[in-house]
């Protein structure tokens, strides 16, 4: 798995992930909760997400090359980290499962394809699986190819439908009070926090100038696009919006002004569907990574097995469980959503602190800076026999080969690591005793 990703790719992915999947049943669902003011609920949720995103970006800036599992293991203990990853895995899987069920509804109802869940999901999972196993870099490149077409499709649907929209349907604003808006936001919160996928890219993304502003800008752009489409949807359908599923297909249907033109807007809908596939790839990649962290899997075969298990869940679960009802009743309107708040909001908000603590705990940088050979990066990589680089700590002792080939004692490198934190008299005496006994030997 190659998870290194470039800033440009991340920007494109951010827009696609924010907008992708939000035009299926979500606008109708939110209209059920908050009526004509559901677009305000959506905006509110995006604002909260933006705050969380800023914290995540801050954490990425603070991070010194560590991955999420290293940070969480350092700070929340291995057990705590595994629990968090388990919640993340369930969150991502349920989000994509719900999204794909909606997508199948769209295909069945609007695109006139007679299919069933297995026939629909198996080809989808093959495409997703190939990318998941290739890693985040593949998704980033995929986004670079498809972004232009998806973006044009959404814009065309939006602006072609815009002229038919009756914006008076949105008024009066907040007529039922802000409580309804807040309740709408609370009930729909499960379908937001898309930017949490970023936490899984910690240590893999290259940050440079204006990184935070560019990523936040992409988020805001995606959010504006989504809210605008929701506004057009609500304006077109008014009070009937809550009964409409597959919002994008409904909106694009208004382009059909004359029977002499075919439903060419379906082409745009189909192209837009590729954003759902990209989002599914990214989220299922994150789910695979979560499970791999839980079971400490690092091999390609291991990732394939994990993805295979996820596929099995995708194929079987909707057949044996009324999944849509479960998500609506237990998560959206029930207590389930609070369970996911820990990974949707709590971890992103705490991540800068956790990253800071993790950096402080292991100090991988100081290890490199204070090595006696002055070729520290190379020294760490070439340490023979004794050195390991698990959490940026070096354990044991052995020969450290530097670039110039001069061997030095690994313990000198080690002395700046975790063990060196023990600067008490006892530890110094202990080290001195060890040196003496080693010399004697």
């Amino acid at each position, binding site marked *: 798995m190659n998870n290194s990703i470039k800033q440009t*790719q991340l920007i494109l992915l951010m827009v696609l992930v924010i907008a992708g999947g939000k035009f299926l049943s979500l606008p109708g669902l939110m209209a059920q909760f908050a009526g004509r003011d559901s677009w305000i609920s959506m905006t509110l949720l995006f604002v909260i997400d933006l705050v969380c995103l800023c914290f995540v970006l801050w954490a990425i800036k603070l991070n010194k090359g560590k991955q999420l599992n290293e940070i969480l293991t350092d700070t929340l203990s291995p057990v705590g980290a595994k629990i968090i990853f388990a919640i993340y895995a369930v969150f991502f899987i349920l989000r994509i499962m719900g999204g794909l069920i909606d997508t199948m509804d769209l295909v069945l109802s609007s695109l006139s394809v007679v299919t069933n869940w297995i*026939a629909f999901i198996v080809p989808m999972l093959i495409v997703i699986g190939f990318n998941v196993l290739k890693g985040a870099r593949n998704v980033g*490149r995929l986004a670079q190819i498809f972004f232009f077409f998806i973006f044009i499709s959404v814009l065309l649907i939006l602006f072609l439908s815009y002229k038919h929209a009756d914006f008076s349907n949105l008024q009066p604003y907040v007529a039922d009070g802000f409580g309804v808006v807040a309740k709408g936001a609370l009930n729909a919160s499960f379908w937001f926090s898309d930017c949490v996928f970023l936490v899984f890219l910690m240590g893999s993304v290259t940050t440079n100038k204006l990184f935070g502003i560019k990523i936040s800008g992409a988020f805001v752009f995606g959010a504006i696009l989504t809210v605008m489409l929701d506004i057009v949807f609500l304006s077109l359908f008014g009070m009937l919006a809550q009964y409409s599923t597959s919002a994008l297909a409904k909106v694009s249907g208004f382009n059909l002004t004359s029977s002499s033109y*075919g439903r060419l807007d379906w082409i745009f809908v*189909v192209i837009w569907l590729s954003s759902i596939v990209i989002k599914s790839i990214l989220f299922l990649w994150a789910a695979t990574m979560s499970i791999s962290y839980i079971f400490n899997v690092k091999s390609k075969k291991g990732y394939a097995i994990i993805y295979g298990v996820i596929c099995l869940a995708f194929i079987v679960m909707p057949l044996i469980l009324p999944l849509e009802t479960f998500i609506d009743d237990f998560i959206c309107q029930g207590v389930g959503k609070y369970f996911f708040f820990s990974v949707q909001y709590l971890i992103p908000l705490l991540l800068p602190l956790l990253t800071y603590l993790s950096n402080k705990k292991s100090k991988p940088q100081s290890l490199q800076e204070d090595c006696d050979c002055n070729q520290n990066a190379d020294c760490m990589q070439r340490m023979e026999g004794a050195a390991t680089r698990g959490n940026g700590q070096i354990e044991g002792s052995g020969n450290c080969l530097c670039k110039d080939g001069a061997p030095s004692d690994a313990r000198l490198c080690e002395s700046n690591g975790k063990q060196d934190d023990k600067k008490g008299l006892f530890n110094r005496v202990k080290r001195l005793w060890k040196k003496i006994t080693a010399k004697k030997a």
Partner: protein
Amino acid sequence: MRMNKQQFLQNFSEFSDLKHRTLKVYGSQLDVIYLDTMCASDKITDFVAKPILSLDRKPTVENCMEKILFGADCLIVDNLQDASKEFLDGKTLIFFQDDERAVAVDTKGIEYRAVAEPPTSRVTKGPREGFNENVKTNVMLLRKRLKTADFKVQNVTVGDKTNTLVSVCYIKDLADKKTVKKIVGKIKQIKMDGVLDSSYIAAYLDPDRTKLFKLVGSIEKPDVVASKLLEGRVAVVVDGSPIVLTLPYTFIEDMQSPDDYYYNTPQTATIARILRLIAMVFAVMLPAIYVALQLFHYQMLPSKFLLTIISSVQGIPFPPLLEMLVVILLFDILREANARMPQIAGLSLSIVGAIILGDAAVQAGLLSAPAVMIGALSGIGLYAMPDNTMLFTLLRLAFTILGGTIGIIGVLLGTMMVVSYVVSLEDFGTPYLAPIAPSISSDKMDAIVKKPIEELQQAREHSALSVRGKEED
């Protein structure tokens, strides 16, 4: 094994074209051995017989070398293995009395095709030279264009039985050292009896396991190879093949044509490239979309167009998917037959196939006119990128089946799968879809939208970044 004339002659005793002449100069016996079929008699006279007979002292290896040195390429061989290798390569061996060494003189008289315009890559304007089957001529054609000390050639011999000479050419400082090393290493590792064409080497250099996508460039024109070398690529010239391989290879190279640089303005070159891209999409997807629309999404078609199609397909005995597959199959059969027929007969075949067969099938009510039209349009599109015709044919078939079974969603998923696979491909560290995915602005100036040559030169201080496997942030 030490040199022994008798042993050598015994090894080649069954060679009926072996000629053995004995000369006596100053009382010393010289044996001149060569292959009649491989050597030119005038060269033997000029570079072997005359210099030896003009010697004014007892002939020794050193004396001969002095006399022949300027006449022809010659070297001293001191073991049977080397002597056999040089002998089979068309060299004349001179054995000396009381000396265990021999002199191999290049008297090769093999006929090669002249340097001419390659039939597969013609240009409206621009250089018309093409490679031939001689590796030396091909390297000369490159060296003629790249008069710099940085132009390097590394020779490797491959093939246990053919001993084919493979020359790896690159420009030092422009080509990535690691890439050159990897390519040379890979060629050295090739273990096979015979290398008869550069495609044999290409198969070993292509990292794509499926071998569906071409990750090794194949070029017949020295000016194009020179331009690739200037971009930092590596060229592999194989003896016996007029096709020179270039590495690393990217998809965008398929869309570029020499005409874009010599004849077209940047604007027309851009339009030509966009047209090639559209042709590729048409070739691969048009039959699939047509079948999907007819089977699942007929509402997408404008009503007048829909009525035309309905009236055309009425009475056709095949379902839409099968009908399209039949059209594609017919087209592929015609194409395959046409490629192997003599040129004059091929023209007649095209007329018979396209007009008579197609028209008769429509008239007989076996196939509908729109299906034939879509099949023909797709077939023409296949040739917009001639190097990928077979790949596009295969993809077209797969997409048509997907479109006919799960509609336009199948086409979308198929596209995503192909693109996912293609973006994952890398050729010696260079992403196959560079400079689009990953994006590299300086290289994008010669991707789909072509910028003027002076801007390109300014953007690329050295070689193309994508060739060096560098991505943008």
